[in-house]
């Protein structure tokens, strides 16, 4: 199974999420993660969808079906080598009185993770990175008792020097604000 990152640029309209995801549902393709936000251009949303699939051909067909959605402006399928990508994770770690103290230096310097909230009995640590990096940190921090763990979907940009506007139809594309 290969990991594919599918980037979809759409008009930002109500219901577009359903229109995109139903294409995966119908083909029984599970979405590993999905992140949507408005791009730097006004009115254009970017979907970053991660799937695992054994057939590149099937993914190419999927991309063509997504392109058929009227509100979709452009769709790209990437392998991991084609993109720079990251996720964000948050760990709520138990720190009761008398417990082994956290090694903040290791957390910061080795794992590039940051404590973003202190409480009397727990801390919240934020870690960005690839899925592998996040789970390496997960293994490291696990002995401290993870009270809660949450991981975002992947965000990704392609390594290609082209910009979003290069892919869009000719128009005056205003910046998002």
């Amino acid at each position, binding site marked *: 199974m290969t990991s594919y990152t599918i980037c979809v640029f759409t008009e930002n309209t*109500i*219901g577009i999420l359903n229109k995109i995801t*139903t294409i995966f549902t119908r083909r029984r393709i599970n979405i590993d993660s999905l992140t949507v936000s408005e791009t730097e251009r006004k009115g254009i949303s970017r979907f970053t969808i991660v799937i695992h699939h054994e057939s590149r051909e099937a993914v190419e*067909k999927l991309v*063509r*079906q997504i*392109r058929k959605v*009227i509100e*979709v402006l452009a769709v790209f399928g990437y392998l991991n080598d084609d993109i720079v990508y990251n996720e964000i994770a948050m760990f709520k770690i138990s720190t009761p009185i008398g417990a082994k103290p956290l090694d903040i230096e290791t957390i910061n310097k080795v794992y590039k993770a940051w404590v973003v909230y202190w409480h009397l009995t727990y801390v919240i640590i934020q870690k960005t990175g690839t899925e592998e990096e996040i789970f390496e940190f997960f293994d490291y921090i696990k002995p401290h008792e993870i009270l809660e763990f949450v991981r975002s979907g992947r965000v990704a940009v392609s390594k290609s020097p082209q910009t979003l506007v290069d892919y869009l*139809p000719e128009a005056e594309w205003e910046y998002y604000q």
Partner: protein
Amino acid sequence: MEFNENQTQTIQAAEPAVAVAKPELINGSHAVIQSLIAEGVETIFGYPGGAIMPVYDAIYDYQDQVNHILVRHEQGAAHAAEGFARTTGEVGVCLVTSGPGATNLVTGIADAIIDSTPMVCIVGQVASHLLGTDAFQETDVMGITIPITKWNYQITYADEIPEIIAKAFYIAKSGRPGPVLIDITKDAQQKLMTKPFAHKKCEKLISYHPRLAPKEDQVAAAAKLINQAKRPFLFFGHGVQIAKAEEQLIKFIEKTDIPAASTLLGLSSVSVDHPNYVGWLGMHGNYGTNVLTNQCDLIIAVGMRFDDRVTGDLSRYAKQAKVVHIEIDPAEIDKIMKADAPVVGDAKIALEMLLPLVKENNHEGWRAEFKKFDVIEDQKITQPELAPTTEKIKMAEVIRTLSNKTKGEAVIVADVGQHQMMTARYYQFKKANSFITSGGLGTMGYALPAAFGAKVGAPDREVVAIIGDGCFQMTIQELGTIAQSGLPVKIIILNNNFLGMVRQWQQLFHAKRYSFVELQNPDFITIAKGFGINGHTCSARENLNDSLDTMLASDKPYLLEVLVEKEENVFPMVPTGACVADIRLE
């Protein structure tokens, strides 16, 4: 400078004298109808109800400009709109209420998307403040129809109406056509627009750019393969009729002398008399076309999508052949069959571009190979079907007699099942755009309302619906619509008291375990008469001619019931999952 009271009054009094009269603002419902009129809509198939009532109130004022046809069930509206769209090439329009009105359209919408039929469905919705509250007759029709529409949109402000309707028509008709659904909340229908009504046709969208003219390099690559091929075989589908490319297709096959076969929905694009026409493809298609699919060296697929009913087992389908695929929908390229030379664009433009690039050729020997199979098929199947020794009438006889009497020039609307396959096999289509049927979805109950819609679209042509007894009872109530309109739709029921195709499969693949396929039918003629439609039953071969003559001579709607052989099978047949070359003759 200060005004005193008097001066101020003077200024106020002067205002009306110089002000331009404000244009009258119309409400959303009037905007709906005026937008439809601006799009050239003359006929709407619909059914009123609570959430669409304001639009129906508005229609009352436009009856001299728009013909509204009251169907008896919303499914009938959808199929009638499809029949209209298929004969005219224009967008069929449905108008229904929310909830059950909308869900009743769903089968027709699903049918239209798979058969690329342009349709705009306007659906009433509960008022916007009630959305999501499980209000009376509220249903999430937007969610329901996402997978079966080319586009859908919910209007909650009257001001949106003209622009969205224009967009709907553009999307429904352009590129690969399809159904569009517009859900309009009741308050959007009722409220006044805040600006004067203006309808501008949509010609372009920011995110949707159907490619009409194919790329020249793609056309050149296709021409090269065509010129090199020794045993080329052209398949034409519904895309030819949608693009109105029949003339170009005939020029192409005549210049290249390539044998051409039709898909189910491509039927009638080329006359059966044409020397290059070799029959139709697929599960119940012709013997030679199926076998020789696995012997050609090039397939030129024009406006068709390699449906599984055409290909059978893909792992054993035309493995020896290269493929040129002319198709307007890029998502169809390589979806089923890998194309060696894809040509993305409108079939008419693509063929026009190809014509000067392809060489004149002679494939007489290759075409003659089809004839050898035709002889076998004729002896084993066609002649026994057309000149049976059994007592009961066979479906093929009815169809061929009708074909002869109408000179192959009627608009034939077939429902789904054995009678549909028999119609495709035995009606000898001579005129383009003459066969309307539910190909992709296989919707039983399609033909009666679709035939009605076809007659509205083509009032000057003879329209004959050919329907099985099972299918007929799925939309039988549309007899009421036909009767009320008075349009002379001719209806033939081929009655075998069975769900014939299912029975055939049970016979062949389920050891004759006829599980719930026998029907106890009503007296169809009495029912038709109850609706005010005349008709009669033909049960004997010697009466068939007269029966058809009587039906065709009628200037009113007419129902002819023909009692046909009960356990008849449609052959040839490529069983599901079998290879096309292993087509069965018995």
